[in-house]
């Protein structure tokens, strides 16, 4: 799977794209090119259209103007190349289905038929092996047999990433996977995503509220704010003037003694988790 393409083409390509919801443009004139195998964060204030950007690339939200292609082709639903982790709260504690079943649904859940327990053994267990492999990859083998509602937020996220990967996806769209996780888990999941990104040449677009926990792992940042989209390398975009202009509010970018960037003051209080319109 180690694709050593020297000049990888664009994984996602928006050209002069715009989305209108309820008669009003969420954003327009968007030109954005995401390189294959890169780890990209989509950032910006609440309601700016971060999720909409992801949904447009998935074909779940239609463009009002312009075009978007994924791996050079027009977007469509049910694309095996793409794994999607929707924005969500946690699973209901009463939802009685195992983690491994949830991952398995990412492989064949869209196909007609009925999940018979013995059917897979007859077909040589290839699907089960694939499910096993991604569960190991995300380090969830210790709890995949347990009911999903009983698991912690971090454990659920790992299984959901496995679900998104299991169809052999070359690209992951992750909508706020770090929301509602504690700091340790935020960093652990970010590191996991980066390693998947590098080892498997998977392109990752991750929507986030807070850039700080993921900043060390990122290749590119995309800011969605005030109806427009700005992208670039983190050190080029994450600057006090740029962010203050994008957010329309004072934002300060600090540099720590070991050279890391820290963004301060762009957000509402830390505990706030807004829900954007899809």
């Amino acid at each position: 799977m180690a694709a050593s393409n020297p000049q990888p083409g664009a994984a996602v390509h928006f050209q002069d794209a715009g989305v209108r919801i309820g008669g009003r443009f969420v954003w327009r004139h968007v030109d954005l090119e995401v390189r294959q195998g890169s780890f990209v964060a989509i950032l910006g204030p609440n309601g700016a259209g971060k999720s909409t950007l992801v949904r447009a690339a998935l074909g779940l939200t239609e463009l009002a103007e312009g075009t978007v292609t994924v791996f050079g082709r027009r977007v469509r639903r049910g694309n095996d190349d793409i794994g999607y982790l929707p924005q969500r709260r946690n699973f209901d504690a009463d939802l009685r289905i195992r983690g491994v079943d949830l991952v398995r649904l990412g492989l064949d859940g869209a196909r007609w038929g009925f999940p018979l327990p013995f059917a897979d053994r007859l077909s040589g267990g290839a699907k089960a092996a694939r499910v096993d492999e991604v569960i190991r990859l995300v380090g969830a083998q210790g709890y995949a047999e347990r009911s999903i509602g009983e698991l912690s937020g971090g454990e659920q996220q790992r299984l959901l990433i496995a679900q998104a990967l299991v169809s052999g996806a070359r690209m992951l769209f992750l909508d706020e996977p770090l929301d509602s996780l504690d700091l340790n888990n935020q960093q652990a999941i970010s590191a996991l995503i980066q390693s998947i990104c590098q080892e498997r040449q998977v392109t990752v677009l991750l929507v986030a509220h807070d850039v700080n926990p993921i900043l060390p792992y990122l290749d590119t940042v995309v800011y969605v704010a005030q109806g427009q989209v700005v992208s670039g390398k983190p050190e080029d975009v994450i600057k006090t003037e740029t962010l203050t202009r994008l957010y329309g509010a004072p934002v300060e970018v600090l540099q720590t003694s070991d050279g890391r960037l820290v963004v301060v003051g762009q957000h509402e209080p830390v505990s706030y988790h807004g829900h954007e319109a899809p």
Partner: protein
Amino acid sequence: MAQQGLSWDLLADLQLLLQFHFMQNALLVGTLVAILAGAIGYFVVLRGQSFATHMLSQVGFPGAAAGVLVHTSPVLGLIVFCVAGALGIGWTGRSVDAGRRGESAAVGSILAFSLALGLLFFRLYAGSAQGIYGFLFGTILGITDSDVLLTAATTVVGLAVIAVIGRPLLFASVDPDAAEARGVRVRAISIAFLILVALSVAETVQVIGTLLIFALLVTPAAAAQRLTARPGLGLALTIALSVLFMWSGLAIAYFSLYPVGFFVTSLAFATYLAIRLFRAASRDHHRPAMETAT
């Protein structure tokens, strides 16, 4: 209703149970109903759609009455009204979908109105209180041969549809957003499932009545899902429990003077309660260490 009493001879009891045609019909219909209700109920509980199920069962009541009024089969009236109700819920979009936003005042008002309508239809028929009682709480008397055929047909169709849409339905039930992105037509599946619930409700009402419908469409699945989180096993267990409750309920009702709905409901509830208590107790005994950060 039994002519002779119970004995310790099981075979003789069984012969006693099956000596009348109405009882054979009741057992046949009861089994068919329990199988479909179990299969549908598994998904009802997984989706948290108990309330929508309740609503459909109440909408079915005036349907049954209308069926009697126009001299066709009450079962046919039930099916027509329940399916119409399902389409109505589907029409209003996601409002009752997966039961998360559903319990609105509008739905409550419709429920009250449908009960009132049913009452009116029965009065228009100059019908007996017995008829109304039968549809509210169920009856095993007077199940005709054509009812048996209709029920068999509905069960076969219902199970066939489940066999075809089972996997996407499971996906859409536990993870609708991801399912949609993977190409599952979540909305269409939701409506198809509601129609299945409607068919199953229409069947189940015959035996157990409008007001006790949860005993077959919700309780066995709730009990089974306490015991296992495996989808295939959970479904099989739900159907097994549902059939077991039905058979036991019918048998006890036959040898006693009391209605079948009471026994089926009580058996289901007692089982559910026992499982919950057992699970709670065993969890207290060896509670796994609480994981926090991984």
